[in-house]
């Protein structure tokens, strides 16, 4: 799932500038599940904004709304009618949701209220660990199901660097070394030789480095081919 973290109140107030009327817009999907931008967080942040702006002598009128998915036109379209009364929208959706709002409603600025951090797995209550960087050329099939792109601090493709020790990454002892995990799993299956082959340079052209990516499925499109 997409995971994010709320920005600090100071940063949010800075972004809002001298706005007098703000709509805080949550999203009912990923950011709800990671407790960053669902209905509950929208409520808490809105109250905080009201109180703090009041104290600062520059009161902001804050309304709240949460749609089921801010990254799909059909869920945000119903907001259209009410947007005219606000100076800005503060979205607590991921970066996709924020951009969907700006694209669909170009006459009003939608600001980000969270930092979208990663594609993560909730490994336990309250803990999210990154698992995928959407590199566009998945190598999990040759790395025993553990992603060296998202989980190795240097995105290595040919085994652990010299900083791997006691199972943890040189960058921080709280990060398990991805290549230790891969090696352990190769051992578990008795297939260490699969890690001995030299992997050629990765095709980063299919990741973000190739420019913004786009998938077009003609079989699913309703409009005519351009």
């Amino acid at each position, binding site marked *: 799932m997409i995971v994010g973290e709320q920005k600090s109140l100071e940063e949010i107030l800075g972004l809002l500038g001298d706005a007098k009327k703000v709509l805080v817009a949550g999203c009912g999907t990923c950011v709800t599940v990671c407790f960053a931008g669902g209905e509950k967080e929208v409520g808490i942040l809105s109250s905080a904004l009201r109180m703090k702006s009041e104290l600062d002598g520059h009161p902001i009128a804050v309304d709240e709304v949460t749609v089921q998915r801010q990254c799909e036109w059909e869920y945000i379209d119903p907001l259209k009618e009410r947007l005219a009364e606000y100076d800005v929208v503060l979205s607590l959706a991921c970066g996709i949701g924020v951009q969907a709002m700006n694209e669909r409603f170009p006459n009003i600025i939608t600001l980000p209220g969270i930092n979208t951090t990663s594609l993560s797995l909730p490994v336990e209550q309250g803990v999210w660990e990154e698992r995928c960087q959407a590199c566009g050329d998945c190598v999990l099939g040759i790395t025993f199901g553990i992603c060296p792109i998202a989980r190795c601090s240097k995105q290595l493709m040919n085994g652990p660097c010299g900083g791997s020790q006691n199972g943890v990454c040189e960058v921080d002892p709280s990060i398990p070394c991805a290549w230790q995990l891969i090696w*352990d799993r190769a051992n578990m299956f008795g297939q260490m030789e699969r890690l*001995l082959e030299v992997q050629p340079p990765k095709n980063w052209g299919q990741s973000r480095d190739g420019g913004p990516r786009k998938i077009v499925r003609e079989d699913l499109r309703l409009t005519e081919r351009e």
Partner: protein
Amino acid sequence: MAEEQTNGFKSGSNLEKMLRSGNFTVTGELGPPQGADPKEIAHKAGFLKGVVEAVNITDNQTAIVRMSSIGSAVLTMAAGVEPTVQMTCRDRNRLAIQSDLLGAYAVGARNLLCLTGDHQCFGNHPTAKNVHDLDSIQLIRMVKNMRDEGIFECGDAIKGEVPRFLIGAAINPFADPFDYRPYRLAKKVAAGVDFVQTQLIYDMPRFREFMKRVVDMGLHEKVYILAGIGPIKSVGAARYMRDKVPGMIVQDVYVERMQASIANIPKEDKAGRRDAQQNEGIKMCIEQIQELREIEGVAGVHIMAIEWEEAVRPIVEGAGLLPRPQV
């Protein structure tokens, strides 16, 4: 220099000739300054001239910005010392690396060390973006293909003169998973490495075990292995390496010997304590060289005395390795 004939050598470098001659080979290391003064390189190179076959010029070591390895290598050559250019995958993508290699060869560099690179979080620009377009093994293969096939990474032919580097890499027998480490060396050999230098050795039993496995796999016949050593300057430095540096193992005996060296010197005698520690550090290095010479598969030593280049001559001399043979 570009027109020199390699005569059956891969690069024709002094280092390659020494390794091939079968003599116990010695390499050193030089850390470029955090400024643009060329005199600093000449000064440090002066300590190493005639003492080692080649000197690694570090590439933004520990992710701290320093004079470039290639620029420093030019100055090192001018000072009469053969450089080994270090190249990390942290700061450059495949385009930048290849163009730098063409330039490095054109100005006369012949030895190259291919590294992954320390993570930028350890250095003075922790908010930098890292590259890691290639990893060190892919880099080795790329440099080999440039040399032996005359092609760039993309497959296009190199036009005219081809860069012919002696290809080096680092190996760390002290990192985990230990069982994987000999295989990682095998991968570097498969990718085309000619020589490797190890991480600093302060755990001889583990290094012996590693070498035993390497010899069993026959790797010592396919690659020259230089054992990494370095003089410890103080008790504090020994403790720091033991407790704080990822990827290092320092046996307690090294810390204890450093402590013992100053046990009878009063605290007020700062100079006496400093000298005693430095002498002990150098002495332990010399003893290590004697031990390493007896280990099958070890082709020489790589002495890392960054910011203490003066220590290299007494170590090499003390080990009975001076004067260096002419090849």
